[in-house]
């Protein structure tokens, strides 16, 4: 099962290494990780997506809390939340395929951010599922390069 943690940490050197070490020491692969400053510049937020079973994730959550540099751990796995990811795609585009691609990009409400004679760079923002669908649609044209930011996430209050 995929777990999603939002972790508030002290914004200084070495914290990322401590956090990632917890996962690697148990043999878990982090599928996605984003780090950035919060509204308070002394605090960073890490959003970590990882695959594992419940027992292990429970342990990981406690271990994260145990780290001195970790201020707060929020498990976003099963709570109402908004989840977004940004992706840049460099896609082959000939004169024949360009308009087809633009049509797909429009359907996904994504943007063309660069055009060259034989390629396009597309920027897409959305839920991971949407991003995956877009990638699937563009694959036949030939994706030359792909960069994903990983998910960021925020809990919704009803």
């Amino acid at each position: 099962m995929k777990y999603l943690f939002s972790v508030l940490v002290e914004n200084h050197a070495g914290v990322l290494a401590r956090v990632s070490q917890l996962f690697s020491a148990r043999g878990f692969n982090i599928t996605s990780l984003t780090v950035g400053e919060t509204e308070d510049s002394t605090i960073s937020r890490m959003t970590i997506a990882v695959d594992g079973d419940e027992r292990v994730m429970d342990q990981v959550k406690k271990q994260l809390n145990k780290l001195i540099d970790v201020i707060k751990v929020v498990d976003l796995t099963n709570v109402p939340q908004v989840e977004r990811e940004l992706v840049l795609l460099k896609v082959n585009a000939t004169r024949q395929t360009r308009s087809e691609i633009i049509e797909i990009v429009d359907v996904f409400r994504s943007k063309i951010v660069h055009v060259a004679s034989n390629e396009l760079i597309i920027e897409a923002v959305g839920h991971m599922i949407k991003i995956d669908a877009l990638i699937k649609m563009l694959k036949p044209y030939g994706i030359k390069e792909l960069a994903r930011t990983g998910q960021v996430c925020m809990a919704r209050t009803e």
Partner: protein
Amino acid sequence: MKKTGSEIIIDTLLDEGVDTIFGYPGGSVISLFDTLYNFSDKINFYLVRHEQAAAHAADGYARSSGKTGVCIATSGPGATNLVTGLATAYMDSVPMVAITGQVASKMIGNDAFQEVNITGITYPITKHNYLVKDVKDLHRVIKEAFFIARTGRPGPVLIDVPSDVQKASCEFKKITNVEMRSYNPTIKGNIKQIQKAVQMILHAKKPIIYAGNGVIISGSQNELKEFVEKSGIPVTMTLLGLGGIPTDHPLSLSMLGMHGTAYANRAIQESDLIISVGARFDDRVTGKLDEFAPHAKIIHIDIDPTSISKSVNVDLPIVGDAKGVLKELNKIIKKCDIKNWVDYVSDLKKKYPLSYTKSDKVIKPQFVIETLYDLTKGDAIIVTEVGQHQMWTAQFYKFQKARSLLSSGGLGTMGYGFPAAMGAQVCNPDKLVVDIAGDGSTQMNIQELATVANYQIPVKVLILNNGYLGMVRQWQDLFFDKRYAGTCLGRQKNCKPVCAGPDKKCPDMIPDFKKVAEAYSVKGYRVDDPKDVKSVLKEVISIKEPVVVDFRIEQEENVLPMVPAGAPLDKMLEHGLS
């Protein structure tokens, strides 16, 4: 007032009440040592002969007293030599602060001479660590380090200080209060959980208390005793929990686990409620996890939430300091109605006592330990190395008090005992401190004979010398068809390739420990005859200087009972394999 980094370090250590440091100098801690030199009236510095020993000595100092141990090493190899000591302290929750020198700030990352990323290396084996790049942070960091090391579940903290930071200076202002927004360990147990626990305890028919190192660390042996006596529930201890309750207390079942007593293991397997106090269900305790105490519900009192439901599923967790939780429990606990169970457990004690085959021809290791107990009556600090002698000590020395056994339980570090005994002795100058050792472990930090000789630290090293790495040899004896691969310490070039045990033609053991001791100006004894054990021990105890005794013991004696690795606790070998 302006102060240099080195002065800030020493000032802050003094502020934390530090009066003893173990360490070893080097290029990147010269200025710190230079400052330390000015404070020799306030801080006793002990120059060890290997940084690993500095870490273990600080550990022994801490375990014997509850105070925070301090060690210093230089960058690079000095720092890496601390690693085993830090890992040992981390596994056993020992409060310790290690200060390492680092290459100058601007050289970090350049593969400079004696540079190593020690904070990176020690992430997984310290409770926390710091690299201090600005002298202005130094005082706060050291204050935080001590706060972190000794509070919550204690542990080692490492502070890496580049050489230029030691020399730089800044305005110095003392912090009186350490506050950290990201570190607030839960100390007080939830009262509702405690009330629920009491209900579970009063309803249980076969309850058992399982006490660990947390009892010792929190200083709650009195509270534990009160709890045991008020409730009338039998109690078993982990290796590091020994001393939590006197071994010969009527309700004590002594140690459980791989080499625990048969009665403790049988009792816990049959119990219907385990009340775990400051223990962590280590694999050497539980045996095969799926078959561990199959009928028991579990109440787990622990200050560290990560210990709870880590290996066994806990029915009622209580996160908090053992002392506070036991105090609350004692307020409301009543005598349990469990006469049948207590009688049954007492019968188990009579039926399956610890025993060994006595001999008047060859020294039995158990006999040495028993005699030591008879002579000291538990009034000594017993330190061990790791291996068979450690288990015999746990089985046959009847520990009476908390902090009277110091042993590397979690990491199982050979070479721990001697330097740890040194640290304990320095902290308790008037107490008898005995390192019970094997011939293998002793040689892992034997260089410290120089330290005990120079400072006249009167540690007694009792080597139970069987010529083997005995614990591994025992496994080979029991499970590997007596194929003694790599375990004979007497093995020489012209020995036959396959050998299944000692005989008369075996060469003399190397080294001669008596001679080694004497080379270091330490008194040495060698004992071969069981008749001499008592008189020599008596004499050794009365000597106020360091002593090494080489007991030539039965070479192929095994530690029994034994739960084979991966077997359930009640499938013990009680008399070896038939």
